[in-house]
């Protein structure tokens, strides 16, 4: 089996993270923003697992499990807000949420 250099793992996770981050910034549909958040969190998970394998420890994988739990909780709250937005405004476009300013 060929060893994958650790720098490659970190590079791909940084790349994935950027994809998610750009998604959060650029998407107007809140559902897609939540999905982009998931991509970011999974990129972090990849980095943790990679770092864990570098140091030959299980800690990285445990952190990944915690991150998965967080992702689930976050999406649950996000979807609850999304449903309320759908009820109130009949669309889920984030541009509608710009009344607070001053």
């Amino acid at each position, binding site marked *: 089996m060929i060893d994958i250099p*650790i720098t490659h793992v*970190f590079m791909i*996770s*940084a790349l994935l*993270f950027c994809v*998610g*981050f750009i998604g*959060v910034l650029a998407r107007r549909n*809140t559902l897609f*923003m939540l999905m982009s*958040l998931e991509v*970011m*969190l999974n*990129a*972090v998970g990849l*980095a*943790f697992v*990679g*770092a*864990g394998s*570098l*140091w030959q*420890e299980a*800690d*990285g994988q*445990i*952190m990944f499990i*915690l*991150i998965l739990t*967080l992702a689930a*909780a*976050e999406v649950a*709250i*996000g979807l609850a*807000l999304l449903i*309320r*937005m759908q009820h*109130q405004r009949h669309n889920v476009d*984030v541009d509608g*949420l*710009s*009344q*607070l*300013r*001053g």
Partner: protein
Amino acid sequence: MKLAQFIAIAPELILSLAIVMQLLLIALKRSQHGIAFFTMSAILLALFAHYPAMTQVNSAVTPLIYVDVFSLTLKVLILSCTLVAVWVSYGYLRSAVEFHDEYYVLLLLAVLGANILVLANHFAAVFLGFELLSLSLVGMIGYLHLRQHTLEAGFKYLILSATASSIMLLGMAFVYGATGELSLAYQVPGQQNLRLLGQAGLVLIMVGFSFKLSLVPFHTWTPDVYQGAPMPVTLLLATVSKAAMFAILVKFWLVSAIFNNETLQVLLLSIAIASMLLGNLLALTQKNIKRLLAYSSIAHMGYLIIVLAIQSQQSVAWALKSGVFYILVYILATLILMIYLAGRSKAHGVHDQDDWRDWQGMIWRRPAHGACLILALLSLAGIPLTAGFIGKFYLFTVAIENQLWGAIAALIIGSGIGLYYYLSIIFCILAKPPVTQCQTVAVSGGSFTISHTTVMAMLTVIIIALGVFPDILASQLMFQSEQIPIIFNEAALKSEW
């Protein structure tokens, strides 16, 4: 685990148990008064549990948690703020037709998160506390579903705080990759070829915390969320969340050896200076008191993080003392203002009573309230004879001791700008009352009771007492180096890595 370790984390155990009991209580009988009373007694019990916990200072409970004097002090502060928040929420929510039991569950969850964050000594604990705090806060910000603005505020907070925490997590992963250690106390700069990775990680972690402390340039969410959130939740955001984030930032800075490097110091100082100036400048034009407090909190957090930019081992104890004193003073003044605002607003109102121009002439109609608010504002502005002045003075000495001339200049300029908007509110309170006899809701309505006045007066007395005799508290706040697992050292700071 030994009994001693259970005693050390007894407050957190009580809080966790109380959360489960709350859920059972809600299942048995839905009652607004019952759950508020239960929550308050649970928090009081947790506060008292700090007495036995004091005997277990400087002990590690599993690798995740380390109990020391600094974290115990901040936990007491956080729990006291929560007590006030629960009582204020009770008055605020009582007027509504619906039952608001779940609100108190979220509140205790947020406080549990804040406590874990303060105690954390490990990335996993930091992560758990951080997320427990922010996710429950999202729930509370968006809690009043009939109001229009809460949805926007909740969604903004959710998306931005989730982004910030994933950035922070990525930073943690990078640091873990570079050092091979998740525990704060053992992190030392690792191999040469991974140092760049570690440094990138530190900057990313710093970004995550700057977001939570609403420091420039990650501050844009603060005014919107403060304005949109129900008033008691704004109170929590401004006190509990800020104190917990400050505590963990201090721990990162002083406990973890890799954080002592000059690049990060420069980054921290520039963030601090930018926050002081921009926060105060943006506050100038605000007519909404919640937004104004949000901008002023940006500036105050900028002042506060000066204490982290220390250069020598000798100044650690003094810097910690100044930091804790300053955040306490800031919280006291903010509490007075927010208790008043929350007392005047109702959960079923369209929005909170948050335009400070309605306060015109309050001193003539309600002298007690007017005087309390004026003193709180003077303390925020840092006028002598109030605690705010002493707090700023302490920060000033820290900055001089460590020769942070840029920060000193920004502190002075920022306070000067701040004086303008604090004084314009004070002048408004002192002005002639409006001619019409009918008073606006902002001065007379809401769930305001005599107990609100009493608590405001008590807090004001504390502010004055601390301003005149700061030593009654300051002499108690002794953070000797041996009481905290500090491995801050000058050699590490000077060595480039």
